[in-house]
């Protein structure tokens, strides 16, 4: 059981690392796209089509894909001043409770955003832009990011790392 948990954690860590690489690669991608747009606009009077819309579809990947990794290194912001004055057992119990609450919130957001993505995918929802850009591609980031985020909360709870 312990071994399985350790392996599951290692696997989750790999997914989180992959997501963080996608996150910063997307940042670099939008950076290059914007610079290409500016250059072609100024020098050739030929703006790159739909830069803004492409960025809109890609932005959620920068944002949501970093959530789980950030939690795994305990970097999300929380105020612990009040908690710190409580006895250790109470601190642990309260943290366990709020982590469970956060995990449920993640799963709730993941599930309902998945439904939204699926609807968008089924009707092949597209943006009104100079080129055809599928909305569903952007919507896919939220359920994936939130699900992995929720699983990381769950892993912390199971491993009693609170």
């Amino acid at each position, binding site marked *: 059981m312990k071994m399985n948990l350790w392996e599951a954690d290692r696997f989750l860590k790999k997914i989180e690392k992959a997501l963080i690489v996608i996150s910063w690669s997307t940042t670099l991608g939008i950076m290059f796209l914007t610079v290409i747009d500016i250059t072609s606009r100024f020098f050739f009077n030929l703006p790159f089509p739909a830069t803004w819309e492409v960025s809109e579809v890609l932005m959620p990947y920068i*944002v949501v894909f970093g959530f789980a990794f950030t939690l795994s290194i305990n970097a*999300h912001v929380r105020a612990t001043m009040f908690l710190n004055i409580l006895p250790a057992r109470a601190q642990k119990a309260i943290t366990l409770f709020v982590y469970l609450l956060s995990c449920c919130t993640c799963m709730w957001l993941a599930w309902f955003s998945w439904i939204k993505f699926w609807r968008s995918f089924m009707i092949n929802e597209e943006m009104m832009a100079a080129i055809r850009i599928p909305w569903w591609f952007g919507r896919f980031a939220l359920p994936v990011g939130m699900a992995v985020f929720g699983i990381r909360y769950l892993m912390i709870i199971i491993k009693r790392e609170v």
Partner: protein
Amino acid sequence: MGAFGLDPLVLGGLGIALLFVLLALGTHIGFALIIASAIGLAVVTGFKPMTDMVINSFYHKISNPTLITLPLFILMGHLASGGGISRDIYESLSLWLGKFRSGLGIATVLACAAFGTVCGASVVASAVFSKISAPQMRRQGYDKSLAYAIASASGAIGMLIPPSILAIVYGTLSGVSIGKVLMAGIAPGILVTIAFSLTIVLMSKIKPSYIKRGSTEYSATWAQRIKSLKSWWTVTIVALSIFGGMYGGVFSPSEAASVAALLISLIYLIRMFNGDKNKRKQDFRELIRCLNETAITSALIFFIFGSATVFSQFIVLTGLTITISELVIGANLSPIVLVIVFTVIFVVLGMFLDGISILCITIPVFNPIISAAGIDAIWYATIVILSVEVGLITPPVGLNLFAAKGVAEPDVSLEDIVRGIWPFVIAMLACVVILFAFPGIGTFLPRLVN
């Protein structure tokens, strides 16, 4: 009357109270905001519409392409420090000022202000200069508490001078032009730079034991000093591309961020490929670290940011802000008293929460009242950002203090840094008072541009 026959004030008030309970319990700030607003929205609209509202407003906020400025400015800060730009600026300023008694301290303050033009995150600047300049200052006879307090306080200047992450967050959440809010930070940034430099000089006069002797290590010839100016080219190019492009009407803020981030990345790559094989490997690892750090910092900011939009929607739906606005206007409070009250709230909140969280929580409640009272939005923005900045260097939750402690030498405790920080807190509060007395300091530059 609101849902369940509840008065909007009561409903909104209960939501805010629940938010603070969740924060006190140690819930991550993003989830505290989402849970409090989800419960509130469910009471007002029911479960299904609430779920739609939460997901839609969260998604639409995080998919806003204007916000690409945030990860790009964060990336610039990490690459600039990782690529040694901060060290070069500091070394150059040390050659110019190091021979004076308070010179190294002032060099740190000025270097932070210059570094602020390529880095919009004060925590990054504090950590970088606590690592570079504080040990140097100690070697030159500075008391450890003063040396680390200077580095930790000066980091806050970077958050005022564009590109400032707080200014972008403020502009996006409040609807005030991001370009103008960024521009409004320049003069207050210079004001704080002068105030901190004067504080160091005063400290050396009032408490001579704080800076024991003048430096000899940094006595340099004029030729060396002038030669050191070469290292300023990176900062100059990046600053010109941001300011010139944005305020010359060539780029939007997000385009300026893309160009500047690309420039910094190219400079980093050129330096990397100029080194030998070992250095190249080391620099490549550093590059990956910078990219990972950018993704992590962006994630933690955007999480709070997206959640704050949901909270904002809840507050708007309860009608709380309209009710408070009507009460405030009915009470005939003068606008200046109103801003003073809000400023005190910001400074107090700054002791317990980080800057972005404070903005996310307060803007939905305070800003409609400010516009109803007819207060200049840009002037108010400078007051808010500066007041929130005070919190960054105020215990118990001064993030810059923690950043400095994180990289400090082993014999330096958090208490040591806190002991030295108070003169800088007072100097910053004095700057807030000066901004109140002379509103033009914050507003004249934004008025020059359209």
